[in-house]
């Protein structure tokens, strides 16, 4: 028997597979399809202080081996997530969940995290400082080490739960930003969010997405994500949740060899609603084939010395 358990800042997961924020809602659509308790955990839809409609449609475009989205953080707001979504989730998911939090000011991040700190169901807070879709906030916090550190400090001051800062790949030096978060007290780093891109409709001669730009994800970004996980692993000591294009159990292993302790699966859930389940089920077989007994042994295993 292989051992798929991993630990994120004291939070032990049965396996490293975590559906990524924004691709798994608040769990219900998938709980109707399979027992989501087989997952390591899952990261719920990016939640903000106020309810948000998000961007005007169209919000989705297809790309080679991937997709663009400009959902723009549509969510019911922190009050309803705590008052309605979490109680509903309790009935179908019995493990600690990852709370993905977004904001448009340092205060907003802190207020949301303070509220979520009191929720027993939440095992870890993933602070999204990287959403490229919202004009006023998101992007800017994740693109400079100073503002990333500022958010980290503000959030750490209001919660005892592990805080993982989710980084944007749309930067020149991802390692510097990860380091700034670590120094500001972050318990871990989550990466990558989507890469900014666009498509043009040839017949309409206009951008496909109303917002003009959207975030690229899916297998197309896997090598970029892997490279960034690798660089961050070399720069920090805190654990990393790696993501970007993960589709198979082999991809999970590859991310872990680059330095990830756990792995999130995003767009793959949208095109195959059973993708995360399949990855969880295949993982032990792939481990056996690769002679891996304990998954934790391979974290960062591709870095020599």
């Amino acid at each position, binding site marked *: 028997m292989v051992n798929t358990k991993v630990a994120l800042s004291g939070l032990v997961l049965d396996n490293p597979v975590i559906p990524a924020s*924004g691709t798994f809602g608040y769990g219900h659509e998938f709980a109707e399809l399979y027992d989501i308790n087989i997952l390591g955990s899952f990261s719920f839809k990016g939640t903000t202080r106020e309810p948000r409609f998000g961007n005007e*449609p169209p*919000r*989705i475009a297809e790309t080679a081996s991937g997709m663009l989205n400009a959902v723009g953080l549509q969510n019911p707001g922190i009050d309803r997530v705590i008052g309605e979504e979490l109680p509903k989730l309790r009935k179908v998911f019995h493990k600690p969940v990852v709370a993905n939090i977004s904001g448009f000011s340092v205060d907003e991040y802190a207020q949301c995290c303070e509220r979520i700190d009191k929720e027993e169901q939440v095992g870890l807070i993933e602070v999204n400082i990287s959403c490229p879709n919202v004009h006023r906030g998101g992007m800017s916090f994740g693109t400079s080490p100073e503002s990333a550190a500022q958010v980290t400090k503000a959030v750490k001051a209001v919660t005892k739960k592990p805080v993982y800062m989710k980084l944007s790949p749309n930067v020149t030096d991802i390692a510097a930003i990860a380091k700034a978060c670590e120094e500001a007290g972050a318990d871990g780093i989550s990466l990558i969010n989507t890469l900014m891109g666009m498509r043009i409709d040839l017949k309409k001669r206009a951008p*496909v997405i109303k917002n003009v730009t959207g975030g690229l994800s899916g297998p197309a970004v896997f090598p970029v994500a892997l490279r960034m996980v690798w660089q961050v692993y070399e720069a920090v000591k805190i654990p990393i949740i790696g993501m970007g294009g993960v589709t198979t159990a082999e991809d999970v292993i590859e991310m872990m060899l680059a330095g990830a302790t756990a792995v999130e699966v995003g767009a793959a859930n949208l095109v195959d609603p059973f993708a995360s389940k399949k990855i969880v089920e295949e993982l032990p077989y792939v481990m056996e084939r690769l002679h891996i007994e304990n998954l934790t042994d391979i974290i960062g295993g591709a870095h020599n010395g």
Partner: protein
Amino acid sequence: MVDTVFEIAANREIAKNTYEMVLSGETGDIRPGQFVNLKLEGFYLRRPISVCDYGEDSLTLIYKVVGRGTRYMSGLCKGAKIDALIGLGNGYDTSVSGGRPLLIGGGAGVPPMYALAKKLISEGKNPAVILGFNTKDEVFYEEEFRALGLDTYVTTTDGSYGIRGFVTDAMDMLPLRGDPTSPLPLPAGAGRAERKSYSYFYTCGPEPMLRAVYDKSVTSGQFSFEERMGCGFGACMGCTCRTKYGHKRICKDGPVLVKEEIVW
């Protein structure tokens, strides 16, 4: 929602750039107005297509070639396998139709009207149907609707076949309640306002057509909408629209919306 691998039993061109694909495999629970989401080899996102007809072990889709994905579909041969998520969306509610529902389909919006017509007939109702196309070469399924015994009106924008104009022009031509050719008798003492030619309506087609139908219609009705989708089953918030009753996901809370809730 169910994930099924179908075998293609037939795939043929039935009108200009328009194909009918028959799939065999288990269909489970399906309602008219629902859609399937097809996984195509070499394309990342699935393609949503309405259910045109269904039985216990077969499913008929009609699609128009408009881009690379639908072009790829048109090249698929009998015997090929295709992965589909089926039973997606809310579908049409037939319980509110009254005895003389009107079905209005435009172009690629015609297919869902067929399964709906069959369902309404099985419930003992007597639907009429208006099928709108751009031109004669694009007309399909007129015979199939007539074979169900429906009063069938075909319009073409250029007048090359049937009634010249839009589906809304055909709406003007329907026999009013109480007319000799209308199946709806006029109740004693009914006023002019009650002489409606239909009891309710269902429509699917391009958005400008839906809007025109909305403005023209004299009863309540249901509209089927399209939006670009990430998942098709409610997980990604990629297809959200505003309604008078709050935000709705076209793929899960739709694609069918009732007239009273629509915000244009």
